[in-house]
């Protein structure tokens, strides 16, 4: 493996709209055998993947600016067209609205690791070298089981352990329509009208999703988009839990607006579900 490192290194694809990220990474791998190509927009990935040798590693950003597809589209294209390419998500720590994107990334694509854009050059190089060695024990790498063990969970462990929350958050197409309506409305009747459902469906949605949001916020306290429900000055006109869910939806509006999630979830809903053994106790 060491010989391979010397001779070939890791062929890296950087999928990031900011060319400075590519230039900075190029400096990090300067004087190593690793090579690097950059793509600014996920829509250019098919072209990039069709040219030259296959990529060993793709560093994928989440956000590509207004109007552009997100990292979920990039990961879907990579998984379809180059399944052998290992994916590492690179993200800015400060982005509050990235949590659902990260959960979706781990739920649908099983990326190898999460790399902070604030990571020092040594950490980035260590991660690339570890990928080259096939060593997946370093910081930032995702353990398949979410790192169950004595050590405190890392941010990646928490994402892997809680990726199931996303399925609870969006169980079907109606849930998705309701989340999208909640981005723009926070009254029961308006949400029902905008999502084309009856108000009892909104009530059931509010009750069940409040529990999921509670769970997410307990696991990820840094995501303070939907503080616990309080008495609302508007009185009975507004359901405090619904207002809270609306705040959560607004914080993650970029995620709910992403067309990529329609396809990803639709494929999951259509897939046959494993039959659960019935318990008689």
């Amino acid at each position, binding site marked *: 493996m060491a010989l391979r490192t010397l001779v070939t290194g890791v062929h890296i694809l950087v999928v990031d709209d900011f060319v400075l990220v590519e*230039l900075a990474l190029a400096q990090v791998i300067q004087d190593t055998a690793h090579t690097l190509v950059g*793509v*600014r927009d996920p829509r250019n990935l098919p072209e990039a993947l069709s040219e030259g040798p296959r990529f060993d590693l793709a560093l994928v950003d989440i956000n590509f600016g207004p109007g552009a597809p997100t990292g979920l589209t990039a990961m879907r294209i990579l998984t379809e067209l180059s399944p052998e390419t290992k994916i590492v998500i690179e993200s800015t720590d400060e982005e509050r609205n990235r949590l659902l994107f990260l959960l979706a990334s781990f739920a649908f694509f099983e990326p190898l690791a999460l790399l902070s854009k604030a990571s020092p050059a040594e950490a980035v190089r260590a991660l690339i070298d570890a990928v080259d060695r096939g060593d997946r024990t370093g910081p930032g790498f995702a353990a398949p089981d979410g790192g169950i063990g004595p050590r405190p969970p890392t941010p990646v462990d928490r994402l892997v352990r809680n990726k199931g929350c996303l399925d609870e958050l969006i169980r079907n197409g109606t849930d998705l329509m309701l989340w999208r309506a909640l981005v723009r409305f926070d009254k029961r*009747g*308006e949400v029902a*009208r905008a999502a*084309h459902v*009856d108000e*009892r469906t909104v009530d059931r949605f509010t009750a069940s999703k409040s529990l999921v949001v509670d769970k997410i916020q307990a696991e990820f306290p840094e995501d303070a988009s939907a503080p616990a429900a309080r008495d609302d000055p508007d009185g009975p006109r507004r359901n405090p839990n619904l207002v809270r869910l609306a705040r959560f939806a607004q914080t993650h509006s970029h995620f709910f607006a992403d067309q990529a999630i329609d396809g990803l979830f639709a494929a999951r809903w259509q897939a046959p579900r494993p039959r659960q053994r019935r318990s008689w106790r």
Partner: protein
Amino acid sequence: MLSDSSLRTRVVYDIAVRYATPLWRIGAAFRGGCVAGLWILLAWFPARSLPQAAAQLLMVSAGVAAAWIQTQPDTLDRLASGRIAALRKAAGHLQGVRGRATADLAGLLEGFGMIVALLLYGGPIAVRPLPTPVYVAGLILITAHVWNAFAQVMTDASWYNPDMPPAAGLVAFRPWIPATVAAIEIAEIVAPGHSAASRLPAGLVIPLILAGSIVLLLPFTMVFEVLLRAGLEACEISMGEVRRNDSITVHSLVKNGAHALIRQIQADAGADRETRSLADSMLILAEEARQMMLGGGPPAETVALLWDCVLQTVPGDRRGGMILDAGSRELQMRKTDYGLARRVLPDLVTNAWKAGARRVEVAVTQERQHANPAARPWVTVSVADDGPGLPAQPAVTRTSLRILDDHLHRFDGAVVAERRDGGGTRVLARWRSAPW
């Protein structure tokens, strides 16, 4: 005007969904009042026709009751979970169709019910004799009901839904809805029968005026859309104000922070050129974010936008000498090329004015090779100044030009500096346009 799709926007749809909820509730109550009035008028009907008249009012009564229940979520919920299967089914249906542009039970019952109710006053099975005031009051109540119901149809939120636009045929028919409804009402009233036109209790004028008034739904809807358009414009203006305020925040927070950082780095002898360049680029990025937030400026990824941002890094008294070639301004670049130009141009311009140049001429071009038009074009950034010329030893040390040169090697490019005839320097940064 009513077929115009410019109102089918997210903002207008959001407004429409918001007004629909209270207006539907008020409308259902109003139509309920109209139908109650029709029941009261039965007191002046001939006794022998009362069973027929009551039967003819049943359908519209059920329709307005259903429409009212539809606006009462709690009542609907109770019915939907009640013991009577038929009511449970009807309530479920009413819940399911709310907010959809579709024919629902309440609408059908009200529509056909009102046609049947109108037959009490006109057409082949009209009740006679009726006192003229009762006849006129009945027609007024029916017309008021129709007015309200179709005002709701004409201003329904679904006309403005950008995600699920109504069918093209429906949009084309929309301006004709009031005339069609008016024609149906007139046809019913003057239909041949024992109540022919000459035998109408109040003559033809009052029924014609009342039915004809339904055509006014068209200008009513147009006025409604004028208000919606005004709301949309007001919203856009408010949005602009918010953007301007936000851009001031970006300016004061990010730019002041960037200036403090740049001052610190300039004072730090240990900071290398790359660090200094990246710190300077913070100003460019903050200005670009500010301009994009404001909107209305040069389009994204154009040289015009980049140049406006670069000028912000030049001291005010030097900006007059910074000249961008007119042809370069409109050049739209690919994302990577724009990113590279954003990395290169500020450094070259800063080097020029810091070296003492009073006039700096900049051009950005993108050229295809004549020999191979299919090949990726070359992008060239040229910065020519009237400064003192190059120092003697730039090539070996890690100057900003050397760093840029390293970066551009990744794109088959390079940075070349040359002395200009007559004094000054011309620096050319050139690279092959990135495919992605």
